[in-house]
């Protein structure tokens, strides 16, 4: 964001300065070109008109002066004053214009106004040609500059340019800061949007439109999430209901099959069949239990009963339960504990289930037997417990490893994915691979 701010400022300041300079230069030339507008009053500029009249000026033999009166624009007037100060030729001359001029009159007139008429004067061979414009039609002012001014002009222009550029930069900086602030709010909004936090921006300013859209998007995401959550809840509840409803009829099937399989009145063939029903019912029972647990884990709705657990004790208990349940001698399980003091915060029965599933997986995948080793130690920082479980068996199918994060097809069972989910739900990680047998690497945050 800092970088962005810098970019915004740099861009703003530089472009503002550039604009200021360009504008100044353009204005300078424009001013030079469009310095006066008096030519717009009539067809020609006064000076040009005067020159034209001057050109048409004729003096006949008797010394009479005359000019082409049609050259004088309407509302304007024109007179010729001879050397003695008498008006000897005139055109449209207003009444308030004197017909005789003294030297003083001439001098004051040449400051451009005669009786408030703006006048233009041309010096001819025998007198002055005066062109008068209507009153209040033209303003005149004079400027004076020292020669020094002209020689300094390049420097002065440069200074003006620089000051203007600096001023423009400062203004741009202030405007840019405002813009940057608003932009930062937008960026913050987008970050919140990404993290699915609620976004409520003020819908004002240049980014009002963007802010409104961000707010709408945020609201839409929230709505969707709520819907998803509702759906997940419903699905989880549905699975729970189904598994509940299956249990009672399954008990009846199981119980009757069990009774039949032990009924001496039936022949052996029939008892065997009943036994098959019994065993398959037990399979369904396990599936139903797993499904229910899996579904609540899937939607993070497990009623977690977290408590401080001594991890090594839990692993020992799990292993001894597996062996005590009648593990064949062709399997061996060894536990190397290097972190007796390690505690984790978790749900005891779930964690037991995870380790049970992993060890059971090794046993069920190696019918000829194998030796299983479990090793637990804390990491260097002491904030994680690492548990490695490996066997020297034949490993598992590649798609078991690939699908460990998903609810698998029934072919492979729920064991490992369930372990994966349980470990994840405890804020840990589980990685499995085939490497001279099956290996599982687990980390769990240790509770200090």
């Amino acid at each position, binding site marked *: 964001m800092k970088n962005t701010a810098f970019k915004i400022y740099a861009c703003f300041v530089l472009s503002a300065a550039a604009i200021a300079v360009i504008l100044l230069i353009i204005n300078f030339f424009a001013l030079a070109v469009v310095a006066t507008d008096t030519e717009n009053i009539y067809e020609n500029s006064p000076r040009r008109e005067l020159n034209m009249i001057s050109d048409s000026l004729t003096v006949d033999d008797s010394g009479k002066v005359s000019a082409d009166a049609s050259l004088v624009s309407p509302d304007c007037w024109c007179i010729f004053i001879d050397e003695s100060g008498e008006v000897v030729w005139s055109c449209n001359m207003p009444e308030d214009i004197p017909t005789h001029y003294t030297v003083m009159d001439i001098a004051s007139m040449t400051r451009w106004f005669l009786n408030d008429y703006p006048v233009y004067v041309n010096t001819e061979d025998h007198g002055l040609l005066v062109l008068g414009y209507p009153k209040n039609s033209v303003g005149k002012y004079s400027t004076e500059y020292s020669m020094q001014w002209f020689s300094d002009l390049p420097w002065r222009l440069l200074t003006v340019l620089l000051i203007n550029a600096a001023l423009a930069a400062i203004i741009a900086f202030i405007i840019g800061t405002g813009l940057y602030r608003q932009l930062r709010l937008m960026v913050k909004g987008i970050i919140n949007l990404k993290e699915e936090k609620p976004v409520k921006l003020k819908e004002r300013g240049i980014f009002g439109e963007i802010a409104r859209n961000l707010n709408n998007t945020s609201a839409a995401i929230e709505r969707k999430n709520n819907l998803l959550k509702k759906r997940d809840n419903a699905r989880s509840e549905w699975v*729970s209901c189904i*598994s*509940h*409803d299956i*249990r*009672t009829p*399954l*008990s*009846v*099937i*199981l*119980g*009757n099959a*069990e*009774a039949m399989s032990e009924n001496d009145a039936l022949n052996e063939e029939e008892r065997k069949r009943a036994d098959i029903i*019994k065993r398959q*019912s*037990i399979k369904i*029972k396990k599936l139903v*239990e797993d499904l*229910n647990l899996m579904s609540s884990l899937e939607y993070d709705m497990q*009623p977690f*009963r977290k408590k401080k657990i*001594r991890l090594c*004790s839990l692993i*020992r*208990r799990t*292993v*001894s339960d597996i*062996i*005590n349940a009648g593990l064949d001698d062709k399997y061996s*399980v*060894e*536990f*190397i*504990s290097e972190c*007796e*003091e390690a505690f984790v915060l978790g749900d005891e*029965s779930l964690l037991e289930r995870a380790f049970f599933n992993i060890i059971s997986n090794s046993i069920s995948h190696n019918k000829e037997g194998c030796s299983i080793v*479990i090793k637990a130690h804390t990491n260097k920082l002491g904030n994680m417990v690492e548990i490695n479980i490996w066997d020297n068996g034949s490993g598992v199918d590649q798609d078991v490893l690939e699908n460990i994060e998903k609810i698998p097809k029934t072919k492979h069972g729920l064991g490992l994915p369930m372990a994966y989910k349980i470990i994840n739900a405890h804020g840990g990680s589980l990685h499995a691979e085939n490497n001279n047998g099956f290996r599982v690497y687990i980390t769990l945050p240790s509770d200090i």
Partner: protein
Amino acid sequence: MKELLNKNILLVDDEKEILKLLEESLFKEGFYHIFTAENCSRALKLASQRNIALFVLDVSLPDGNGFSLYEDIREFSDAPVIFLTARGEAEDRLRGLELGADDYIVKPFLTREFVLRVKGLLKRTYQTEPVQSGFDLPDRRVSFETASVICGDDEIRLTAKELILIKRLYENKNKIVTNDDLCLAAWGDDYYGYASTLMVHIRHIREKLELNPSKPSHIITVKGIGYKLVI
């Protein structure tokens, strides 16, 4: 055992088939005084009329639930209770056990398991087990009463901790008892850190019990997990 078979048992479940199943399985084992009820009111009526020794209660019943029925029963009877439920969720299980239920069976279940639990609970409640006085090894006898190992004419004394450990191993004979379990038995809740002390005690026990203590044949080490008494 005979007197246990004469105890009155009340089964409460809204599913007739299940009641029939439970009744038959207990009947086959020799229990002849079995009463069944399909709802709370009938169950309470029966319970007040008969001297029921064991209750088996389904959690979901048409006119209430097993938990409230349990509390009603506790008003007048201290007999053990087994909850039967189709809800396997931990919440339910814990609620049942928190209430003071003696056992908890999740449907579906094997009737054999059910019968075993009923018998076990009756035994625990109404039969005082004869105190084990010790056990015999091929060449010597371990006596709990005198806290000693008798080998021919020799009598080797066992320390208090050794006796506790041997008893714990004997209660679970031929099964693994974890280090934690043994330490808990010998040193109580605050057992952490006694692992090496446990090893020393086991060595001493082996010296007293085994023919060849360096190659033990009775007290077997299960590496990293615990010990097993093989007899």
